[in-house]
């Protein structure tokens, strides 16, 4: 049980970790290059494909990957599933780091990085992008407050910690509501272009599709992280918890699959699953890798009971959902003359941002009480 693992001493950083640090620095250098020369010289973006790798991965997927934060706090504080309490803090940490990195990705991606603050004072309430920016800003603050107890515990500010505890519940609710709003609105970006997004993806339910798949992805991410942390830090696997998370992912994926099929059938678009050429191919791949294969895996007892099996299933969900975000974003822009493959700089920045998340996570779990039960220390 997690509650028994009181030790916070972690093994010294390995060469793997230093590689990640190096990749972060390379990514930072690539970002500086992008700022220096502009988007045209550093990316393969064009007037035909204005949204590329950074939007698809760093923003659309990054936000969805951080959905574990609100999902776990909902499980623990709303549904009172106490066994997940030990992973609430790591999940909140991941989400907080995730959003911080997403915001960095956004600043790198926008053409006028120095104007990043404009949406906070120049409001267009009819814009989905405006809503997303507001929600992400507010939710980052909520996550900071939700994670603050780790700092307060570390520096033994017990009074402040008790005071903050009064707000646990409102913060959790605010986090869930804000997450629902912006996770779904990332799908909402594409509502305005019904004739551009292929029928396989475009539905007025697109926001809900994004929301449900974000929950599956968020939970998969939390279990992925729990398994990898145990491997890297040579801790015991929290088998009970990762099995429970697997069950959560399975249920969410089944709901997603049923919703997807129901929605396609309702719109009479089921035949297009096989008849839309390239879109059909990519749609099938995303559904197979991200939904159908993991459902089959989680349904098998031998997989459910093995850490490697759960790890594999979580990886499938992560890859499949990222593919979904990529597909929706790319096919929304795909015209007759469209081709796009990210430039070296785009790839380096994205790798750098992912690496930065790992570095920040590692630093946080080394210097802050993340893994042991909150409240245990006093």
């Amino acid at each position, binding site marked *: 049980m997690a509650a028994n693992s009181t030790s916070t001493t972690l093994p010294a950083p390995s060469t793997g970790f230093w590689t990640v640090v190096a990749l972060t620095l390379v990514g930072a250098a690539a970002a500086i290059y992008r700022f220096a020369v502009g988007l045209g010289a550093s990316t393969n973006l064009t007037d035909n494909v204005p949204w590329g790798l950074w939007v698809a991965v760093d923003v659309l997927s990054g936000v969805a990957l951080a959905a574990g934060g609100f999902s776990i706090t909902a499980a623990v504080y709303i549904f009172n599933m106490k066994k997940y309490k030990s992973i609430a803090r790591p999940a909140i940490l991941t989400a907080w780091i995730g959003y911080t990195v997403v915001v960095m990705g956004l600043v790198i991606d926008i053409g006028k990085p120095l104007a990043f603050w404009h949406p906070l004072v120049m409001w267009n309430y009819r814009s989905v992008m405006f809503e997303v920016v507001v929600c992400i800003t507010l939710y980052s603050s909520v996550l900071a407050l939700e994670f603050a107890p780790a700092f307060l515990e570390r520096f033994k500010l017990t009074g402040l910690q008790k005071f903050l505890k009064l707000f*646990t519940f409102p913060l959790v609710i605010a986090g869930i509501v804000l997450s629902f709003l912006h996770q779904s609105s990332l799908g909402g970006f594409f509502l305005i272009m019904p004739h551009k997004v292929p029928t396989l993806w475009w539905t007025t339910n697109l926001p809900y599709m994004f929301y449900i798949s974000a929950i599956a992805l968020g939970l998969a991410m939390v279990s992925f992280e729990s398994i990898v942390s145990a491997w890297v830090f040579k801790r015991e696997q929290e088998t009970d918890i990762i099995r429970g998370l697997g069950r959560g992912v399975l249920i969410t994926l089944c709901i997603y699959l049923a919703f997807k099929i129901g929605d396609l059938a309702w719109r009479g678009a089921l035949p297009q699953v096989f008849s839309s050429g390239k879109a059909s191919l990519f749609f099938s791949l995303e559904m197979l890798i991200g939904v159908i294969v993991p459902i089959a895996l989680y349904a098998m007892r031998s997989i459910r009971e093995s850490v490697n099996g759960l790890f594999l299933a979580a990886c499938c969900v992560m890859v499949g959902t990222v593919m979904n975000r990529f597909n929706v974003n790319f096919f929304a822009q795909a015209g007759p003359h469209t081709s796009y493959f990210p430039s070296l700089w785009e790839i380096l920045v994205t790798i750098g941002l992912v690496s930065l998340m790992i570095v920040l996570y590692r630093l946080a779990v080394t210097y802050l009480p993340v893994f042991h039960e909150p409240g245990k220390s006093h």
Partner: protein
Amino acid sequence: MATNNEKAKGVLVDLTRCIGCRGCQVACKSWNDRKTDKTALEGNFTNPKELNSDTFTRISFIEQDKADQPVWSFIKNQCMHCADPACLSACPVGAFSKTEQGAVVYNFGRCIGCRYCMVACPFNIPKYEWESTNPWIRKCTFCADRLADDKVPACVKVCPTNVMFFGPLEDVKKEAEKRLKENPGKYVNHIYGKEEGGGTSWMYLSAIPFDQLGFDTTIPAFKLPNLTWGMLSEIPVKVGALVVGLGLIAAFRNRGSSEESSESTHGEEK
């Protein structure tokens, strides 16, 4: 947002009249002070190949065979100036606005460069200054400065064959309908832009089906921002329902446990 005012202007582009002289292209560059592109012969007369940050309008040349006769079509492309522009609703910082005359104009001072306008535009009109480190979104302005000054747009002014009929928006619609009615068989029976995306200030008549001339004929006939507004306008209701729902679930699930966190470190309660 609505431009049902008397000052709203429109343009009817009668493609049957265009001779492909590209005078409009030159006049547009000249009035808007845009630099010219370096071009190359590529077996196609359309030049430049697509609109870009320095080319707000250009003639697309399409060659077809009709009854074994080669047929040229010359199609003027530029911003359509929607009644309810997708770019305007999409922009997080309100960098787009619609002038009294119906021109959709852009404010660089607000723009953050997110490029959602480019992705959202049903006609793929806004273009980006990719090579700049302080880039603008660029597109046809309907010569908003000239309109405000009671002048006609530069391209309309220069056109030698009167391809473009410029006037109050309502008159433009009437003129399009009149030409359709008075010349049976001359045009395909469609006024492109009258319904597309909920209606635009620029409209087209053509003798050849629009989808063969590069026009997107799949654009729905309603205001596209309604789709996103449908979602956004429900936010207050959704937030209220979620807060109440989550509160009730939490109260139900946590009943009987006095201190929600302190005594549960063993994680055995379910």
